[in-house]
């Protein structure tokens, strides 16, 4: 028999600390496959966030750096400007990018930094036990919105992809999801495109926003979690190519 699917080398063969059904494992695999298929492991430097994916360097076998919460786009700027031949990517969650790091991502996009940003949107702060994130949807119960998120006082969920698309320096913005194999394939294409743009020396920032399940903090089974994504999250966060 022939193998049609197996683990790609840059996705290290070791157990992960992620919860059962967490989307990080899926996206890590897609990023690793992209790096291997484009043959860029030797010139790629990745930035791990503060969040559940802080240990991404234990799973992605490329040079990686762990940075302060939200600062990844600034670190990426420092790295890319001084090493324009390297492929620089950041991997950030919704606390990292959409809460504390809004200044850094907006300005990196505004300046058109030639970096690739993978933005994981799971509508909560995962690492710290399930608090409201900027992307938590209205009515969603979290440890800090125990009556459900209210528009008055908590605000509406933040639409990062649309927000950044308004900036000329952001040249490719797409929102994907990993709650079905078909959508995972599309996400892979988006990630490959985003890395490809950097390889082509495209003048601007690429960001792929990926809706991801967090069964533990949503208090759901993994299967219920992906159903919730299909039913609820995609009505708030529209999938598709927003720009580019």
């Amino acid at each position: 028999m022939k193998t049609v699917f197996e683990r790609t080398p840059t996705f290290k063969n070791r157990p992960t600390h992620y919860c059962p059904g967490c989307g990080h494992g899926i996206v890590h695999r897609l990023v690793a496959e992209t790096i291997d298929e484009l043959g860029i492991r030797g010139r790629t430097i990745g930035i791990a966030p503060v969040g559940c994916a802080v240990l991404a360097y234990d799973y992605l076998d490329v040079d990686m750096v762990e940075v302060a919460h939200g600062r990844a786009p600034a670190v990426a700027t420092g790295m890319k400007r001084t090493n324009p031949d390297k492929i620089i990517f950041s991997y950030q969650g919704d606390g990292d990018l959409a809460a504390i790091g809004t200044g850094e991502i907006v300005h990196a996009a505004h300046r058109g930094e030639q970096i690739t940003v993978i933005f994981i949107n799971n509508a909560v702060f995962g690492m710290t036990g399930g608090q409201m994130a900027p992307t938590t949807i209205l009515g969603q119960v979290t440890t800090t919105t125990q009556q459900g998120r209210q528009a008055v006082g908590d605000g509406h969920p933040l639409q990062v992809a649309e927000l950044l698309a308004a900036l000329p320096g952001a040249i490719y913005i797409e929102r994907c999801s990993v709650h079905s194999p078909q959508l995972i394939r599309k996400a892979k294409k988006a990630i490959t495109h985003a890395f490809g743009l950097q390889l082509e020396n495209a003048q601007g920032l690429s960001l792929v926003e990926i809706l991801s399940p967090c069964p533990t903090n949503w208090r759901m089974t993994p299967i219920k979690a992906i159903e919730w994504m299909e039913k609820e999250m995609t009505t708030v966060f529209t999938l598709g190519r927003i720009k580019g």
Partner: protein
Amino acid sequence: MTGKIIIDTQRCKGCGLCVAVCPKNNIVISEQSNRMGYFPAEAKNTGCTGCAMCAIICPEAAIKVLIDNNIVAVETGRKSKAGLTEEKV
């Protein structure tokens, strides 16, 4: 059977996503727990077509997918630079 999956049952965390997406109901959750204390997915390998939906959604990349030699491989979303490797299974 045209396809076959090999699940790394010690790596599997029993999330059940593969069970949910398999179009052939080829995967079940085992009654036996693995070394990590999870109840892993198990392949029945009856009617597997090698579509790889399970492997695509597995967050642990714990599933390897194979197909018969005489089948033309479908696009699984992952291109291997080495092409399809021949394996004795």
